[in-house]
């Protein structure tokens, strides 16, 4: 069978009338939601210690002391769950020539004129941007986070390095929250996207509109049928 270029193993046409396409397996979805939940816990507990006006958020976790020890452990959980996502998704998130065209037509993207955009594989340049930004920021956050983890690594780095780690950790946190908002917003604004991470499937029309090369490849593979 032909090598997949735009799709992940497991992606397939699930039903024909109407067309639905399987986009994420159960395992990937479960893992995605572990990452998402971790990120939300990290965001709330981190913001609580970031700005005095948000300190009240420590109440969600049972007080300041609990928030302080919980945050880094959830960070480790997120790191590993995202690592699995990364290993699954990085290949299809590599840049392709059509990404350049997509970015230069960002106005049409925002206005929803997708007929003016090139046909795309499983991910568009925006989704790839979110993926790589998350990847880099998570590495920066876990690295700087361990350096400021008083409970277990009080002497890992010198105090001047620790100050930089603190500053970098908070800047990276602001950045990742912005990426997170972007990710959630795009998933809601682009109707029909959320079900890819809940039920695991999208409609044929959604795939046609947003990721036509991906749909074409899957349809082509179905046509030839599995090797028997």
């Amino acid at each position, binding site marked *: 069978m032909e090598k997949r270029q735009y799709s992940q193993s497991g992606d397939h*046409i699930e039903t*024909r*009338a*109407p*067309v639905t396409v399987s986009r994420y397996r159960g395992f990937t979805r479960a893992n995605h939601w572990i990452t998402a939940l971790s990120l939300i816990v990290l965001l709330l507990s981190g913001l*609580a*210690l*970031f*700005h*005095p*006006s*948000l*300190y009240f958020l*420590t109440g969600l976790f049972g*007080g*300041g*002391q609990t928030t*302080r*020890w919980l945050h880094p452990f959830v960070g480790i959980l997120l790191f590993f769950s995202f690592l699995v996502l990364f290993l699954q998704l990085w290949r299809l998130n590599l840049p392709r020539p059509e990404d350049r065209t997509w970015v230069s037509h960002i106005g049409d993207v925002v206005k*929803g004129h*997708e007929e003016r955009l090139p046909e795309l594989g499983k991910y568009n340049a925006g989704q790839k941007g979110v993926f790589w930004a998350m990847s880099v920021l998570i590495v920066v956050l876990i690295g700087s986070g361990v350096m*400021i983890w*008083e*409970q277990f690594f*009080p002497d890992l780095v010198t*105090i*001047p390095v*620790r*100050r*930089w780690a*603190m*500053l970098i950790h*908070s*800047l990276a*946190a*602001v950045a990742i*929250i*912005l990426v997170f*908002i*972007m990710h*959630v*917003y795009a998933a*809601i*604004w*682009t*109707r*029909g996207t959320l079900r890819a991470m809940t039920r695991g499937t999208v*409609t*044929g*029309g*959604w*795939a*046609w*509109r947003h990721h036509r090369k991906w*749909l*074409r490849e899957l*349809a*082509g593979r*179905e*046509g030839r049928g599995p090797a028997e």
Partner: protein
Amino acid sequence: MTMDPNLDSPRTAVSNPPIQPMKANLGVGDVVRASAMPDLPKPERQLTPVAKLIDVSKCIGCKACQSACAEWNDTVPEIEHNVGMFENPHDLTPDMFTLMRFSEFENPETGNFEWLIRKDGCMHCEDPGCLKACPAPGAIVQYSNGIVDFIHENCIGCGYCITGCPFNIPRVSKTDHKSYKCTLCSDRVAVGQGPACAKACPTQAIVFGAKEDMIEHANMRVADLKSRGYENAGIYDPEGVGGTHVFYVLHHADQPELYSGLPANPQISPVVRGWKGVTKTIGLAIIGAAAVGSILHGLFARANRVSAEEEREAEHLVDRSLPPRDERV
């Protein structure tokens, strides 16, 4: 000599405590600054600024101050191994708020060997880096007499105070996960007694009183040292942190680093200021704007929807590639 009960703070550590009943000060109403509480009400009154003066030239390294400190604060520093040096314990710990640091110095100008002993501990900065860095409301407070105190019931053990401190003083306990340092015996000062270390010092190398008086006393000590050939004798009361409420008389005030790395120009690191300043305020503003903006846009802007036409296109595409439906089923 007994302290006048009408004074708001003790003027000396050697006197006996007042025998008349007196009201403890250093309460909530005397707090001028508190961590993570930008809108603190103004204090009810201004107490006389106090200070502890440590005259390094008079110190004999007996560690009575350390013993008195552990005694008063009821701490039991862990017993460590002798590694061939006088410092004991080897560093400040959550149970040892003050530490005699010993350094050996061969003076190149005189050829003399000098044993420089400095009592290390919280400097009680006028502009405290620990307080600036602390995220827990009210865990670090500064009283109007200048004492910087950790309020342990509010401490969350994050260690940000360590990041903020220019002198490497606070230590977080592994037992209760709270940060500890010298309190300048705020619980003694509040009831008219000088700090335990100053009271115990046999040579009065440590003295305590109003900061103004202590500066005057320090100037006398510096003049005396100069008359004995210590040309560079001087006061260490660093401007970079707005002055401190624990300060030194040094025989080599031009080289404070000689005294076990006492920083020459301590200040709150610009990195810490950047983190607790622009990053905190602008960062939160940008996050808030992005969140509100996307919610508004989500409510009022047209969503990106898939049309029925596109669903049909998808069916055509799949039908073209796949064998007719009835054969497959």
